[in-house]
């Protein structure tokens, strides 16, 4: 919970978090090593100095640290887990729903578990999707179109099997489809930056919401163009937001474009934890004001109302969270630092 100077409480849902294991022990090959190294590059390049972690901590920070950084030191009230399997790079996967579920079980009011699927898994994957719904009651999933699988270096939402999976999502009520469209690995013959397949999917499946993580950057123009036409397309601010610290002028340009094309109702805050930490992101975002020239030129504003929507209300709508009820539950049962021992046990249980 963030409290403004006037004492107003802002309910915050972090739309993009991870609990990963990028440690050497879990790395399968050089790609695994380079993947976490690259993440660390993002972390060091865009974090304020005082928030930069040592590499060893970054490789595998564990459940206890995560809980603390999000909800105790940080201002998140809830967080959405976005899994990233990367089984070709990591022995036990990088960040799986099974790992995330342990924290969800311990703090059911804090976490939203999302699943994942890969159309290249064919029928077996559809079955696995059904299992995820039954077991974890997921309402959303994270898709990583640039993920490797054997000889394949990626896929698109327009692929025939992807269409079948999305039809299944409609049936199962997995209505929030988070798609990684941002700076990514290896666009070779498949241009993983390309957001055009979102357009097709959003038209074909109006029942689903497509949250384009990282707003398609560096293809912001293509993304905005699509989002204007498709009311069920949203922008996830992970990776765009940290520029608020290192390049505030640049952040102003990006956010003003997004506000102009999508408006404040279709943007979602996401820290991308553990790459960046909610504490400084939320503090800076809440303190941030657009310069008058931009407000005038673009006719947009990042006022308190817009911030409230971006930080929590939009995600609450997508995930059917009743904010008042949820706030009461969290404040009533908020686990404090005293639970650290138990958290250590949780960490142990998931093999940290």
């Amino acid at each position, binding site marked *: 919970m963030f409290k403004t100077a006037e004492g107003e409480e802002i309910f915050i849902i972090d739309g993009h978090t991870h609990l990963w294991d990028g440690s050497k022990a879990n790395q399968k090959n050089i790609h695994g090593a380079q993947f976490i190294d690259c993440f660390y590059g993002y972390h060091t*390049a865009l974090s304020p100095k005082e928030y930069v972690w040592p590499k060893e901590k970054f490789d595998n920070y564990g459940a206890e640290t995560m809980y603390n950084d999000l909800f105790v030191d940080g201002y998140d009230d809830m967080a959405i887990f976005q899994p990233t399997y990367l089984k070709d790079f990591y022995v036990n996967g990088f960040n799986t729903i099974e790992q995330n579920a342990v924290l969800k079980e311990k703090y059911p009011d804090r976490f939203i578990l999302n699943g994942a699927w890969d159309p290249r898994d064919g029928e077996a994957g559809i079955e696995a999707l059904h299992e995820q719904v039954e077991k974890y009651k997921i309402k959303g999933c994270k898709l990583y179109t640039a993920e490797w699988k054997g000889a394949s270096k990626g896929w698109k939402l327009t692929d025939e099997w992807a269409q079948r999976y999305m039809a299944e999502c409609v049936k199962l009520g997995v209505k929030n489809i988070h798609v990684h469209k941002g700076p990514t690995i290896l666009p070779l013959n498949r241009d993983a930056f390309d957001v055009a397949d979102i357009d097709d999917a959003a038209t074909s499946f109006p029942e689903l919401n497509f949250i384009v993580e990282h707003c398609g950057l560096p293809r*912001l123009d293509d993304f905005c163009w699509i989002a204007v036409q498709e009311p069920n397309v949203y922008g996830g601010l992970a990776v765009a937001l940290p520029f608020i610290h290192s*390049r505030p002028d640049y952040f102003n340009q990006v956010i003003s*474009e997004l506000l102009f094309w999508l408006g404040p109702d279709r943007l979602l805050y996401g820290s991308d934890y553990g790459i960046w930490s909610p504490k400084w992101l939320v503090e800076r975002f809440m303190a941030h004001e657009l310069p008058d020239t931009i407000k005038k030129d673009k006719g947009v504003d990042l006022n308190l109302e817009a911030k409230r929507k971006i930080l929590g209300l939009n995600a609450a709508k997508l995930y059917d969270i009743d904010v008042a009820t949820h706030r009461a539950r969290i404040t009533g049962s908020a686990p404090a630092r005293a639970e650290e021992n138990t958290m250590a046990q949780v960490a142990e249980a998931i093999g940290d």
Partner: protein
Amino acid sequence: MSTPAFADAAPSSAARAAEVWASLGSVTDPELDEPVTELRFVTGIEVDAEGRVHIGFRLPTYWCAANFAFLMADDMRAAVSSLPWVRQVTVDLRDHMYSDTINQGLARGHSFKATFAEEAADEDLDELRRTFRIKAYQRRQEAVIRHLLDRGWAVTDILDLDLPHLATLPIADPETLKLRDRYLEIRREWGGTSDNAFTSAEGEPVTPATFGEYLSLLRRVRINTEFNGHLCRGLLQARYDDAPTEGEPTLADFIAGRVAKREMGGHDQCRK
């Protein structure tokens, strides 16, 4: 070769390395539209007495797009090969997922398609180059238009400006002068055959009625490019931990091998 001639090779090899460096300055990262030398992608230049050139090449991440990596390496090879004394050019891409594939492909004179026969059957590098050249055109154009707007030029005056007048416009600030010249350079490739200073990349005229929309398109192109630029610089620095202290590394750094040495350190660590 006799010993005295070999002794002479030292100063001349430094001079030749300087020539190589200058010619690499014409090679840009197509996505960022900035020279590979200014981006600190070139880590070292070695020239031997036989006219063989070895160029060390690095990128901000292991994952940087293989098509762009190949394109830049191939452009470097072509640029340096055009120097009259050069007999052979080796571009040595390091710490990249496809270092070996790309280095070998280039050494054999293969195209991108032949080098990545399995992964990139459909990839058309010329099309990619074209796409990003248009973005570069738009970005350079926006910089000049923005400059004029900032100087109080009316939209109609900007749109009435023709190429000869833009080329002779008195500009005091050297940075702006560079922007103008870079735009004029790319305007010869794109923007059609009309005399108008500012047309769309395809040569369509911009009118006062369409100007606002057109400028906002240019601005979005700039935002994308800047995103890449900020990230690439930040990631390169984070990866090699060798922030430029006083501006970019100088030619002297390269000739003296200082940058190459630092890079080698990073290289070793990466492989451990």
